[in-house]
């Protein structure tokens, strides 16, 4: 199984790395928004994409094109992300290309799912929240990235 794990730098990335044991039987490839973060996953294939957020439409398009091109080359079976915008694009593109996709909403979202998470509900095969009171229907709670 080839797993592509995507997260923006900062808290999203820290949370993604804490899920690593879940991929121990898979071929793991990482994607983030700053090249220097390759140093935190030495020994793994790492792809850098331009960062963007929903406030800048032009950057969003640049990121989307970059994520699309990379996924076409990487050809993962599974895409997993802890957010934010670039991870959501990974989930959408992945789903359209026939990958299985997993969204793990950031632990920072304690009152409601992030906006990206709410969009991801429509595309991801699996949606996790990290707070039991936010679980409902397709949104499941199975513990946190911290323990």
């Amino acid at each position, binding site marked *: *199984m080839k797993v592509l794990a995507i997260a923006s730098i900062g*808290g*999203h990335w820290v949370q993604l790395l*804490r899920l690593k044991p*879940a991929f121990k*039987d898979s071929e793991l490839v990482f994607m983030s928004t700053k090249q220097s973060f390759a140093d935190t996953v030495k020994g793994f294939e790492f792809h850098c994409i331009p960062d963007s957020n929903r406030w800048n439409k032009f950057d969003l398009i640049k990121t989307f094109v970059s994520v699309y091109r990379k996924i076409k080359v990487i050809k993962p079976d599974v895409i997993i992300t802890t957010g934010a915008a670039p991870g959501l694009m990974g989930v959408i593109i992945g789903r359209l290309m026939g990958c299985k996709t997993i969204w793990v909403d950031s632990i*920072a979202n*304690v009152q409601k799912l992030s906006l990206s998470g709410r969009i991801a509900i429509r595309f991801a095969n*699996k949606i996790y929240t990290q707070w039991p009171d936010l679980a409902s229907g397709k949104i499941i709670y199975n513990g946190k990235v911290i323990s």
Partner: protein
Amino acid sequence: MIFVTIGTQEPFDRLIKAMDEIAESFPEVEIIAQIAKSNYHPSNIKTLDFMTPIEFNEHFSKAKLIVSHAGMGTIISALQQEKPIVVIPRLTKFKEHRNEHQLATAKKFDELNYIHVAYDITELKKIVLSTYYHNLKPLYKLGPYAADSLISSIGTYITSL
């Protein structure tokens, strides 16, 4: 040394100014701050712009105390490295963030008693100085990975495909 970090998004001048004032009143306290995009220019503390994760970790591990915005990356790293941490949430009323989620996150982790939270500058200065001088222990220790239940749920799903 106190390591101050504001994350990568927006300026957090309220925090940097407060730490600068602490350094002015207590010159024996060494303060190093990561201040991407700050508008306030402190004169009593050492500042650095964006650091690579390796440089960031070096400062982080040397610090006796971490002071930061309520960003999950910093909070998790501090709990994992057993560093005492004081967080002050970014607030929309000061245009420090676009929404109030840092306040909600800080409150939740405060309730769980994982971290020290300051809700304003006066409280921040008080907690920082008492934590620094009384060598307070971190409130909670994290393991390196997510909860077993989450890891096995994701792992099982992937192997089932």
